Each structure stands twice: as C-alpha cells, then as structure tokens.
C-alpha cells in the first residue's frame, strides 16, 4: 500500500454504529459480514459483524480510500489489530447507552494505543439523544486524565455529515503534530 493510501477503520463495541457509519460514506455497497446475534439480541439490534465490513471511496485521482469496520465483540480483538495495521486513522464509535461506555473508551484506546497516543484516533459517541447534561463531559475528562488530546463528538451514525465532520477533525489532527 502506498504511503498516501487512505485507510480508515471504524472500531468500537457491539451496537455502536460502525456498519451504519461506514454505509454513509462508502461509494460502493459495503461488503458486510452480519450474522444473527446468538446472545444479546434486542428489538433494535439483531445482527452483528462477525469478520469485518469493507467499503471504498474512489478519489479524484482514481485511487481508492479503503474503509474497514471491525467486529464489536472483544474476542475478535486479534482481528481488530490486524485490520488497523497501517491505517490512516481509527474512527472509534462508542454507544453512550452501553452499561459502561467509559470502560469501552479505556478498552479501545488501549487496544489501539499507538493511534491514541499519536492522535490518529477520533471518537464519536452515539445514542446521546436521551442523555441529560453534557454527554461528552465524562469522555473528555477521562481522556484529559490520561493525557490524550483526541477529538470527541456526539454523533448520529446515520448522518453522513456527522461522519464527515469526524474525518475533517482527523485530517486537521494529522496536520498538526502527529
């Protein structure tokens, strides 16, 4: 892969919106590996990614930006690490309604510690609509305590504009000091 090939990886726990987000920006119909959930299925979420999702965006010069979505279950971590290798950036999505989203944040910043340390990670918090007060505060405070300067946004994974704002922020982060 050329040094300037764009490779973005959507990561995060089950139900955080990775596949949905990837769908919003991929030029092609993404290749997905969704299977029915055997444990933890809900009315809203009955399938989950078991291998990886893949999409593409064809750039003006004809090259392709590669988009990958990782599986959410932690026992697929080895797969996440393989997928993330050589990536331009990690788009980490966290579900604010999960039991302990702060633990998810700690877990994934540790899993992708190189990207977190170098600032090539951006965090989107989904399902914040019902949150009281400022839903981002707990995440920003945790990151600050651990000396990370990563962008955190409240997002709706179904909104293309939200995904683009995350990519804009990731790009600006690459510009300065990575």
């Amino acid at each position, binding site marked *: 892969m050329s040094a300037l090939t764009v490779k973005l990886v959507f990561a995060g726990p089950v139900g955080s919106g990775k596949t949905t987000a990837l769908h919003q920006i991929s030029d092609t119909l993404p290749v997905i590996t969704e299977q029915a959930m055997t444990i933890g299925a809900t009315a809203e979420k009955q399938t989950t990614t078991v291998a990886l999702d893949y999409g593409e965006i064809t750039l003006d010069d004809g090259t392709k930006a590669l988009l990958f979505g990782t599986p959410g279950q932690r026992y697929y971590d080895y797969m996440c690490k393989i997928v993330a290798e050589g990536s331009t950036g990690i788009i980490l999505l966290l579900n604010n309604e999960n039991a302990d989203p702060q633990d998810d944040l700690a877990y994934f910043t540790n899993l992708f510690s190189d990207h977190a340390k170098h600032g090539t990670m951006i965090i989107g918090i989904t399902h914040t609509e019902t949150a009281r007060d400022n839903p981002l505060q707990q995440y920003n405070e945790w990151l600050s305590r651990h000396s990370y300067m990563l962008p955190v946004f409240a997002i709706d994974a179904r909104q293309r504009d939200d995904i683009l704002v995350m990519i804009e922020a990731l790009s600006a982060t690459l510009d300065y*000091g990575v």
Partner: protein
Amino acid sequence: MTCVNFELIVKLLIYPKNLQGYYLHGLSENDQKTIASFFFLLSDKLPKLGSICRNKKDASIWIIDVDSPSGSVFWNAIQDTQRHTLIAISQIKRSDAMWLIKKPFTVNGAGGVLTVCRQIFEAMPTPFLAEKNITVAPDNSLEALSQNLAQQIDSELTLPDGTIIITSAIDGKCWSNSAPKQWLKFFSQLSFSQPSDTEKLDAVRNNPEFRVYSIDIIQWCLALSLWQGKPSPQASSLKTIQLKCWPNFTQLPHHPQHIILTSYLIRYPSKIQDLAIATKLPLEFIQNFINATMASNLLSDNPAPTEKPKMIRKNPLRSLLKKFGITQ
C-alpha cells in the same frame, strides 16, 4: 475625512456610556500632542469618551511607546497585568501586543489628525470602550439576545433566511424550523429579536416543523457573531490560549477553519498573533472563535507549555475531504 469622523462617532455612540482613563507612557512630546488632539477633537461631541490621566492608577487603558527605552522597560514589567488594557505604539508589528498603533504618525493638517484618530480608535478594543454592562441599543438584535440570555428571558429570533428560533432559558433548549448548521451564515444579520411568551413556546413544542436543540448552540453562534473580531469582555484578558477539549462540531455550526484552529490550539498554547501566523487566518476570525470557545467554557485555565509545532506533513485525508467537497 468627514466620513472617517462619522464612522468614529457612530462606533462610539453604540457604546454611549464610555468613561475611560488613558495613561500614556514613553511617548515623545509630539506623539503625546497627537494623542491629546484625538481626545480634544472628539471630547465635545463625545463627552463620555474619557480623558488622559496623569496617574496610571486612574487609567484603565495604558498606551505605551514600546520603541522608547522607558516604554520598553515599562511594557515588559506590566505584561502580566490583567486589570488594564495595554496598547503598544511601535514602528514594527509586535507579537506580544494585542493592540497596536503603528508609528510614525503622519499628521498633515486636520485631515491627518483624523487619520491618526481613526488609527488610534481602531487599535482600541471596542468592547473595552464600553462599561462592563453593555447598554443595549434597541435596534441591536444580537445585543438584545445577549442580554435576554444573561437574564434568562425567553427569546424569539428571526434570521434573514426565514429561520425562526425560540429559546427557553429554563429548559436550556431552543426550537427551530431549520438545522443549526444553517444558522451561522445569517446569525450576524439577526434581523429580529424579542422576548418570547409561553404560548409561542407551547406552539413550537407541538409543531412538527420545529426541532429541539441545546441552547448552547445559540450561545456559541452569538459569541461568534457579537463582537465582530474584537475580544469579548470575558476573553479580553487572555494572553496565552489553549483548548481543554474539542467543541462538539457535529452539533455546533462552524467553518472548516474552526476545526483547524481547534486542532492547533488543543496541542499548542498560543498567543492570538502567533496563531494567526501559524494558521494564516485573519485575526478577527480567530478572535471570534476564541470568544465562542470562551463562552462555551472550552478554554484551559492553565495553558501548559509544549514543544514547538511540528511542520505540516503531506496529509492523505485531504484528497478524501476534497472528494466530499470540503477544503480545509
């Protein structure tokens, strides 16, 4: 030159309750006379403009010729002052001066004096010319909104594109018939603002055309628009600026350059002049952004020194953003 004079007077009349003291330090006799002419020319028309003070303790604005030996020493000694507005006079651009009057003054008759007046006035931070509580001119919708928000009065706003926004201070929310990202384009031209009532609030709550948003978005837009490139009163004493976290740009209306500024300011504590050089953005644009981040409580209390910014390297994501029509 009549035009210049008119412009000055209009600016000052927006803030009719000015009463400032000005202390001059390190100026040559000629330059002192020029500055004195400025006050003399305008004092009869603007009796509340303020006056030059002999004692620096009586003055809230200190004007210092930093090119003179005594001015230079004085300037360095008072850099940490938070209580006074410092205006430097110098032949060169100074990165440590928030406000600068460039020398030499060229005074050729009355017209020349007025040019200097303009130079001096434009170097002054307009918000400082007001008292701490801004007097709201009835036709200034942005300031009326500002006061309503401060006093927790519900407001009804109309933007030139037909956007209607109703704010509820108690709920901490606002309702609008258009998405916030559309607001910024017209917010500075807010055409109508008035206190709202319960009936209107109930009507928009039940109107499917109106969606609910956080009132923080209004605060953000207001702070970006109200001060027109000058520091807000809260941001006036800032010297070194650092962001403690990112603004929530998925919800806050923004320009792409706001993301660039954030990316820089989150890593590198900077003075506004240095930031303008590093990002190649106009000072006024940056100041508006600082005002907004200040109003949203996003600035760090203790900017920590860091290493110098690294060079911008080739960024592969630019081609991707270009594909989506976004240029940074």
